[in-house]
């Protein structure tokens, strides 16, 4: 019952927000303000209630299942129901807290924006969909929530649709994840048919032969790779940074991208070793590649986006190595600190009026609160004690070190290297943003895709409070799992991370005005372009499909319709031939009659 409320409340908020938002806004500014305030209420209150109820579920900690109805499709039945399990409650808590923080933050970030009501309504819809995924008792219900999240991602990334680039980024986000989702759906079919039911508890308990499991889980991995932005379906995430920063924090850091990892963790017993190996290889490549790409980016949000891909690959590697609990722990801490980092980045961007690192500098005096909260976030990202990231990375590394996966060495080595590169890029971003001399130029109007122009002050309170509140778990969450702390891997990780930090710091110190990434030299461009994967896809997938589409239109017009038109012309042509029989010469007609009579007479005589 409570579970249903948790899922339905944000949905109700979304519906009310969409219907009662007085959209389109009229010319009356007072009316617009009232509509925005109403929308803010519809956004914040249901999310807060939902998060509160989730907290109560965490406290109560009893598993339960709520079934609404069973849909009989004539094939495998679909159970519409919600299930409470420990993993679900934990993830739901993360979702609830981050969603609430983002809703409150958006009130400040999108102040005065005329499309704010639909923005907050879509965020509520997204929250409801994510909670549906988390609490789903049935694979099909999970899929429904999964796809609705994809839709909300499209609607929100394309929020400032006046810019073509934002629209394209939204399409890319939706299509790349949809491609993965088709595989996901097929994986669900395989599992459902093998188990005779789509219900997750039935599927987990069913006795499914291993080859079927390998096929099913590989298909599920396609969807996971799409939603969690793993290689090769990761290209949408950096472009999705075109959306407003609050949704980058919610969707592209803490929740939707975590949904893939969540699904693997939920169905973990089903994943056989071959699939986990595939996941591990993908994760190892993604971890290091994304970290290197993050180091070379000029746009602060893109740094954080590649960082997200890298950290998600970290969790995937943990899952591949058999350390499910470590992966989930890192999921929660990453959700907290990455959301925090994005919100702080939003405050910085809001202040400076630009996303680019070389427009920032020396902000620690102008924005002290932001500086300290962002430092906490970066510390967690790098894995410095006592921040939560330190403990969760330790757990992951410990799990990888002791894993009996065939590719254990690859996973562990890649993870360790990534820790170093993570330290490097995080330090670079931190230094270039907050230290050095200020490069703020007062831009006459905001760069398209950013919310506000420079106003020289710290961010408003509605933005600072969520940042502060998120900084608490980012700092302290590690201590909840303190019983499982392992010294040796922790020290190794710390040493490697500090190496990366120190390296960048020394370089930066040498000339504070220049970008430390110049050290990559010729390697910088490939890193910045994320190893040209985008261009590869455009050449191998996008352009051929568009050319094929044009070819199909031509074929349809010339060949298929040509056959139809040709049949008409052929008929007319044929009649053109036969009409020559009617040449007006009566003697020809009589000859014809004679021939016919002769034939009939012969026929009558021969055939009797």
């Amino acid at each position, binding site marked *: 019952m409570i579970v249903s409320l948790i899922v339905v409340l944000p949905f109700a908020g979304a519906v009310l927000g969409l219907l009662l938002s007085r959209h389109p806004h009229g010319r009356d500014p007072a009316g617009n303000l009232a509509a925005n305030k109403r929308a803010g209420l519809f956004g914040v209150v249901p999310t807060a209630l939902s998060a509160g109820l989730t907290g109560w579920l965490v406290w109560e900690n009893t598993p339960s299942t709520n079934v609404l109805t069973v849909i009989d499709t004539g*094939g495998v039945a679909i159970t519409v129901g919600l299930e409470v399990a420990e993993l679900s409650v934990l993830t739901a808590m993360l979702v609830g807290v981050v969603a609430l923080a983002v809703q409150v933050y958006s009130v400040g970030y999108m102040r005065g924006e005329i499309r704010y009501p639909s923005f907050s309504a879509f965020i509520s819809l997204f929250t409801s969909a994510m909670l549906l995924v988390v609490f789903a008792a049935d694979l099909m219900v999970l899929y429904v929530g999964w796809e609705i999240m994809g839709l909300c991602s499209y609607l929100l990334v394309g929020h400032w649709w*006046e810019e073509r680039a934002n629209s394209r980024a939204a399409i890319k986000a939706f299509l790349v994840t949809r491609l993965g989702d*088709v595989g996901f759906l*097929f994986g669900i079919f395989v599992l459902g048919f093998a188990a005779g039911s789509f219900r997750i508890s039935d599927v987990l308990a069913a006795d499914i032969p291993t080859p079927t499991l390998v096929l099913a889980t590989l298909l599920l991995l396609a969807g996971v790779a799409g939603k969690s932005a793993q290689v090769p379906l990761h290209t949408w995430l950096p472009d999705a940074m075109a959306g407003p920063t609050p949704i980058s924090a919610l969707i592209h850091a803490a929740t939707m991208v975590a949904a893939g990892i969540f699904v693997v963790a939920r169905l973990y017993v089903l994943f056989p070793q071959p699939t986990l190996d595939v996941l591990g290889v993908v994760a190892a490549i993604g971890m290091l590649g994304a970290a290197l790409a993050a180091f070379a980016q000029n746009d602060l949000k893109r740094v954080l986006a590649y960082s997200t891909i890298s950290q998600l690959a970290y969790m995937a590697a943990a899952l591949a190595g058999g350390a499910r609990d470590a992966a989930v722990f890192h999921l929660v801490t990453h959700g907290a600190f990455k959301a925090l980092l994005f919100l702080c980045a939003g405050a910085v961007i809001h202040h400076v009026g630009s996303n680019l690192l070389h427009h920032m500098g020396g902000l620690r005096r102008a924005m002290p609160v932001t500086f300290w909260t962002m430092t906490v976030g970066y510390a967690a990202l790098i894995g410095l004690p006592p921040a939560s990231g330190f403990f969760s990375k330790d757990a992951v590394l410990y799990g990888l070190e002791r894993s009996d996966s065939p590719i254990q060495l690859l996973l562990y080595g890649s993870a360790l290297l990534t820790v170093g590169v993570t330290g490097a890029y995080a330090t670079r971003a931190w230094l270039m943003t907050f230290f050095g001399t200020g490069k703020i130029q007062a831009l006459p109007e905001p760069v398209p895709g950013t919310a506000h122009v420079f106003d020289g002050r710290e961010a408003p309170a509605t933005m600072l409070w969520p940042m502060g509140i998120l900084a608490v778990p980012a700092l302290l969450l590690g201590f909840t799992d303190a019983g499982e702390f392992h010294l040796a891997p922790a020290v190794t990780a710390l040493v490697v991370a500090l190496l990366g930090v120190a390296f960048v710091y020394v370089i930066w110190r040498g000339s504070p005005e220049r970008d430390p990434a110049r050290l990559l030299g010729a390697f910088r461009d490939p890193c910045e372009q994320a190893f040209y994967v985008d261009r590869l896809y455009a050449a191998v997938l996008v352009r051929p499909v568009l050319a094929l589409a044009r070819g*199909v239109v031509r074929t349809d017009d010339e060949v*298929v319709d040509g056959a139809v038109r040709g049949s008409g012309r052929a008929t007319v042509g044929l009649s053109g031939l036969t009409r020559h029989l009617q040449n007006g010469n009566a003697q020809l007609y009589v000859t014809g009659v004679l021939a016919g009579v002769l034939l009939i007479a012969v026929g009558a005589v021969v055939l009797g």
Partner: protein
Amino acid sequence: MSVLLVALLVVPLLGAAALLVPGPLGRVAVRFGLTVSGAVFAVAVAAASAFDYSDAGTIQGTVDFAWIPWLGVRFHLGIDGISLPLVVLTALLTLLCLIYLAGHEPERARELVFALLVLELGMIGTFLSLDLLLFFVFFEVVLIPMYFVIAGWGGEGRRRAAYKFILYTLLGSAVLLVGLLYVWAQTGTLDMVRLAAEHPMSRSAQILAFVAIGLGLAVKTPMWPLHTWLPDAHTEAPTVGSVLLAGVLLKMGTYGFARVAIPVLPEGAAAVAPWLGALAVVGIVYGALACLAQRDLKRLIAYSSVGHMGFVLLGFATLTPVGINAALYGNVAHGLITGLLFFLVGAVKERYRTSDLDQLGSGLLGRLPYVGSLLTFACVASLGLPGLAGFWGEMLALQGAYEPAAGLSRPLFVTFMVIGGLGAVLTAAYFLVMLSRLTHGPWGGPGPSIHDATRVELTAWVPLVVLILVFGVWPSALLGLTTPAVQTLLGVP
């Protein structure tokens, strides 16, 4: 109940006949048509409430009397779980079309309303008839009024489009008639109920008959490669013509599969099903690719119909309960969604006098917020997003293809499923690209004379939006009707 079924046919007939009488009715033709179609809709709703939902698999409200005794043709009507949603859909769409016309008064209104009422008669008659020749008669009745609607009130290329439409579908109907007559010659009866229960034909006869009947229905559906009449007809037809063409006429073809081809000729269906499935998935991918490169909005939606009907045919080809459920669900969903799409595109075309994407410019969400948001909603529904009606048709069709009926090649159908899935991705691609081109992008501020959706238009569109949502989140509403009927149809206990 039988009275209601007869009333469903008599009311539009009387309404059309009343319009033939010269007099003052011509001046208030649209309002009169609105009353008549409202009455038909009320009767349809009454039939839906009088329907026994626990017994959805059996024919209800039977009307059966001899029509041409010396030929053995009977006037046999009836309704069950398969036809009920389609009848209500037809009545609803016709009513909404007339509401739309009330806001956009056409020229020669009397003739247009007459054509629409005769069209309604034909459409409802097709869904109600249970005698093969009666079915054929109603099937044909819709061709003439639709020809006139396209030729009389259409766009610039309307003559050619109308000719192509009527000649092509007439050719299909001729082949269909040959098939039906062959069935009659082989079995001696025209009664669909008896034929479905007894299956008296031999296997080779069934295959022959299925190919003939299937070809005829395939032109109407439309199935690749017999689809080329559709883009021109849809593009040149007026808004109400396109809505009814896409929303109902296409359903008549697929309904024929569900009512005539598969129940009466099961072995023929099993033999031809792989071909049907193959052509269906080709249609899905072909339609999607053709949409990607389209410049004209109405043509794009027309090709999208080819794709959606591909999913419906794939569902039929699997010959499983879940597949045929999918096909019937997809039918209703497509009727609602594409009807809404054509209404919206018609509204855009009427305001800007063009439906060419290059000329329409960008930023529709800014210029016409309600129309733009509803267009986004309709496109998202059409690409099969879960939570909206289109999802169930597509997903269940793919599910049916994963495990087709016994006797059909499983690897072949799984290949179809994969291709269909890729087609779904391409569907999403073209809709989003179209939306990006049209609704996103810079706009120069609201124009002086272009107004957003009027109250009349919203009255016509909101019921469709609500139904798309209802059938998206509550699939059992429709599945509860069709599942028993499908099980009766397939002979599954």
